[in-house]
């Protein structure tokens, strides 16, 4: 076959209809769509089941009342809601700045050809894979016991921070890496320092990706029950936390407890509280999406 000798297309065959989208492609496209719809459907069915079950109990009692082991109709999750806010809020304050800072250092400053930095890189990857229950065990041994912080909000927050830190770092790095190199070059060539380049060009451009990562990491923290079971996150707390040294419980543990009680009313209360928790998460996400859109518009 020669490029010069053969005319590229016989002139008579000028139909543009082609064979349409090849049948294989079409099948694949439908498979993809099916995968998407199926997984969505499954999830939506599950969630709506909960909403239906819990709807009748979804009222202000959830956030105005305290847990009540004897009278389900008077029970609420106020202490768990406040506990979740305290614990996850503190976790966010600790882990987000630390994680973003570490990611910036690794992505923008560290010389990746150095052994030390490669080691750190691999460590973070591996730490992201450490099961949450192990963080619970460690938090118990060190933070609660050795540091003597006891079964308090701060112990829980420190443990959750360590737990989500690798995720925060990895997600932030991905977002930073997605910022084109030419933007860094452009900024540095104008005599900006590296810090200025990061702060004024790279970070603003990376904000959407970073925000997504933080949402995922924090929502993981909100949902964690296993390590907190070891760290004193229990179900029968009838006072709200008043500080970092308070006892606490969190929503997933409260729900878990209700689910295993025999009375049907507690099952319904659990469903209602789950719906409440989901609404809380939804609101958080909405805020994050709002921030993201604001930043993107500024471009």
């Amino acid at each position: 076959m020669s490029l010069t000798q053969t005319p590229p297309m016989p002139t008579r065959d000028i139909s543009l209809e082609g064979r349409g989208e090849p049948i294989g492609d079409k099948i694949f496209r439908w498979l993809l769509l099916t995968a998407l719809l199926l997984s969505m459907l499954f999830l939506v069915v599950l969630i709506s089941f909960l909403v239906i079950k819990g709807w009748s109990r979804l009222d202000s009692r959830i956030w105005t009342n305290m847990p009540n082991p004897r009278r389900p109709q008077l029970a609420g999750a106020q202490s768990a809601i406040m506990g979740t806010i305290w614990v996850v809020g503190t976790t966010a304050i600790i882990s987000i700045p630390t994680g973003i800072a570490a990611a910036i250092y690794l992505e923008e400053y560290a010389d990746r050809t150095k052994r030390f930095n490669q080691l750190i890189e691999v460590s973070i990857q591996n730490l992201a894979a450490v099961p949450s229950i192990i963080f619970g065990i460690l938090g118990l041994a060190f933070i609660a016991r050795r540091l003597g912080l006891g079964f308090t909000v701060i112990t829980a927050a420190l443990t959750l921070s360590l737990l989500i830190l690798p995720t925060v770092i990895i997600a932030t790095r991905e977002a930073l890496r997605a910022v084109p190199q030419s933007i860094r070059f452009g900024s540095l060539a104008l005599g900006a320092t590296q810090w200025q380049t990061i702060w004024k060009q790279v970070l603003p451009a990376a904000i959407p990706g970073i925000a997504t990562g933080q949402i995922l990491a924090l929502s993981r923290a909100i949902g964690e029950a296993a390590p907190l079971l070891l760290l004193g996150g229990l179900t029968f707390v009838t006072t709200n936390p008043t500080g970092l040294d308070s006892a606490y419980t969190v929503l997933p543990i409260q729900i878990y407890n209700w689910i295993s009680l025999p009375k049907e009313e507690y099952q319904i209360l659990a469903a209602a509280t789950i719906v409440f928790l989901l609404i809380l998460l939804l609101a958080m996400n909405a805020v994050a999406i709002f921030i993201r859109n604001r930043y993107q518009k500024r471009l």
Partner: protein
Amino acid sequence: GSSASTTDGGTAPSASGPALSGAVRVDGSSTVAPMSEIAAQLFQEAQTGVQVTVGTSGTGGGFEKFCAGETDINDASRAIKDEEAAACEAKGITYEEFTIALDALTVVVNKENTWAKCLTVEQLAKIWAPDSTVNNWNQVDPTFPDEKLVLFGPGTDSGTFDYFTAEINGEEGASRTDFSPSENDNITVQGVEGSKGGMGYFGFSYFEENAEKLTALEVDGGAGCVAPSVETAQDGTYTPLSRPLFIYPSGTAIQQAQVLGFVEYYITNNAQIAEEALFIPLNDEQEAALQAKFTAFQAANA
């Protein structure tokens, strides 16, 4: 891989009868689980064709599955509740309650605590009451020194918590909440060990295992101070904190040979199993009642 070896420690009592096969599903209380696990292991050594699994969904969570027909035997650290019984009935699940061992809830204090040897139930109730303001040992008894009282206890999900609060404070779940609770009794061990004014409570096995680290208090239930021990639990003098532990085999499941075989083995060898799991075996009277009850149950579900 096989782990079943009897080279050290006691040998497994052999199970009689023909070779069995199939699955036996046990779930329920995590307190009772160690005994069921030991029973399961010993039984499987004799009956290699049977697969016994033990879960720890908690007494309540276990009953939920049990009454849905999803398990064959439920471990329980308390008697079945009316709602749970109703659920079983609705599903047509019959069962029998067998007391297979005793436990003595043990109140422990730090080794350096030389002042407290014995507390009355009233004193304990004063300490653990839901509205308690006792924060110092000298509030418990004026003769006690000025030492901060640091409280540890089990998680509020546990049968231990339910039983202790019911017996000491008169209502299940009624307890002060400003103590360090843990689902893991080893944490309570470490906590009391680490603070001079510490106090906590848990099952007898945790005390036995850590006897050199902690001191167990005697309890005065109205008839004088009694220390927790195998004997005082068996003869009923350690009151009100000694309690029975149960298994609930399903009448339907027992009709399967391997389930029957396992329950029979469990009940026949309950004393050895309880000892190995660091629980307190039944006294002779209870033992006889157990065997009689089992024979009747077996006959009813033949």
